[in-house]
């Protein structure tokens, strides 16, 4: 369970401040699929960053299973992200000089798992995203949809509890986008991974259990399916 309490995030200096988050309260249950919807500049990305422990709030708290992220030191936060959170980004962020296999094993490598042990696990997630035949391909030689599959595999590799997907279909055509979204929801249903999608696409948002509309750093309204 993720519990967000009175979250504020302020950017800028004393003279020029800008409130990206302005008192967000939110609870997300395990296994839920939630869409965070908003226009650009609404604060939806900042909310995701703070919830994913990539950024620290100015005030307020984010709690996982009752534990406040603010109490973790840098090393613990790194470990927390590495082991509990999977990221899927709009821009993929694949290493161009490495092949699919190496890209997917990155979180395991960061965790300090030896190359032998990585091998098995990578083959397993490659199967889950249906990319076994591309494991030797360079990341740059893949289509957009294939790239995003590799990203999902990379997000899955540590058996995360939560996947944060930041505009996962933003760089894909609608047909490919649909298959990626289907894959994400399949993982959500079958593996009970909490899925948090940041999007401005209403069609994707409507597929989620719950939609949270953000405007000017505040929650405009909740909508359940």
């Amino acid at each position: 369970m993720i519990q967000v309490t009175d979250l504020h995030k302020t950017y800028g200096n004393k003279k020029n401040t800008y409130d990206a988050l302005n008192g967000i309260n939110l609870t997300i249950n395990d296994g839920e699929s939630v869409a965070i919807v908003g226009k650009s500049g609404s604060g939806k990305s900042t909310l995701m960053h703070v919830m994913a422990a990539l950024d620290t709030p100015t005030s307020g708290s984010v709690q996982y299973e009752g534990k406040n992220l603010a109490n973790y030191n840098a090393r613990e936060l790194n470990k927390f992200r590495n082991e509990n959170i999977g990221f899927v980004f709009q821009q993929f962020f694949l290493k161009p000089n490495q092949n699919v296999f190496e890209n997917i094993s990155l979180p395991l490598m960061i965790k300090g798992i030896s190359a032998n042990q990585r091998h098995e696990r990578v083959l397993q997630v490659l199967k889950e995203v249906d990319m076994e035949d591309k494991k030797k391909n360079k990341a740059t030689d893949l289509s957009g949809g294939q790239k995003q599959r590799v990203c999902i595999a990379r997000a899955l590799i540590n058996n995360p509890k939560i996947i944060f997907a930041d505009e996962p279909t933003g760089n894909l055509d609608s047909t490919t986008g649909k298959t990626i979204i289907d894959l994400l929801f399949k993982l959500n249903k079958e593996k009970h991974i909490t899925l948090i999608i940041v999007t401005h696409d209403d069609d994707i948002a409507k597929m989620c259990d719950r939609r949270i509309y953000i405007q000017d750093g505040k929650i405009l309204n909740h909508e359940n399916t």
Partner: protein
Amino acid sequence: MKTLDIIRTANSNLLRSKTRTILTILAIIIGTITLTLTVAIGNGAKDYINNQIKAVDIPNGLFIVKKNPNQGRDGNPFAPTDTLPKYTNQIGIEVTPLISSSDMASIQQIKGIKKVYGEHTNLQTLYVTLNGNDKYAVSAYYYVPEETLSLAAGTIPSANDSTSVILPYKAIKTLGYSSPSDLIGKTVSFAFITSSNINKVTGTPTPTLKQFHVSGVMVTNLLVGDNAIFPVSVNNAIFNELDTTPTDQQSFSNVAAITDSLSSKDQSALQTTLSNKGYNSNSISSISSSIQGVITTVQVGLSLFAAIAILAATLGIVNTLLMAVLERSREIGLMKALGMGKGGIFSMFAFEAISIGFWGGIIGILLGVGIGSIANNLARKYFLKGFEGYSLLTFPISFLIIILVIDLFIAFLAGAIPALKASRMNPIDALRVE
């Protein structure tokens, strides 16, 4: 992240912009070659001096001369005086005073001195001749029984052998032979003279001819030079024969002393005692170390220039890695988002720098040694012909390792700046970079 994975990733990252990496390594290579060669030249010179000195070694030997009261100021024989010298009943003011029989006795009594040998430099050799007609100018070098000499051929005559001589290497060709062993056993005549044999009116010398049989031929050596070599007993015996004045016979121009095996502390204490009694003393090792000191100074000076070249090359490392950090900010952001700590990011870039330093260092050292070997061969063939036992450049493995360590260390320092910059990046900002 495992260290092995960090090293692997760092190395694969280096290959991403090959040209840039190669150029950076090239700069390190040039610096390293320069450093390797300057160090090698210094070592070659030191080795040469060592070999030369070893060829005429006197274990525990000490050369003693009387201090010239007219020479030097404040105990420094090379410092100019500010007054005119006193007259001391000798012709010429630069002449070192003679060591009298009482001086000899007092030196002999100093603790640590085992044996003393006096030498009359007033006894001169004018020439050597094989057939009596062709005369060649030659000087003499007198050795003490404790001295070891490196011969090209033959044996060293015993200490009291008054009819044997060791000829200089040049004598082979001079006397019409081709190999050192050809000279062994031949009989040659030397013309000896002292100042008392010079006709006071005409100035014409009347030398005395003495016959010697050649027992050995000396290798070319810096310290002995082109001198004919006799036991010091020959010097004393012939001088006494030519100059019958008892006071002259008992006065020596210099003394070679053999000491007990002394620690360097005791050795310097002994030399201080000698100095207080009015004698200057020098051991072969101190001569050697003072020459080595001069070479080391020159070597360090040259190496500093080479070090500047390496330093300039490391700016290339800083530049290369700063560019890499900028290019790879999104990747750094991603790795941080996926849980990589500051330390991991820092090590990755630091290893890239160290890797550049390593390859630049290794290749530079190998090329340096290669160039050095070619230079050595050319030198031996041309301008160092006849310098026995001299390599222009020598490459002790310990020095090569030190050079490599210097390369790695400087590369690490250079890499630390960009590595620190990368490790401090904020993951969100880094991911946002377009």
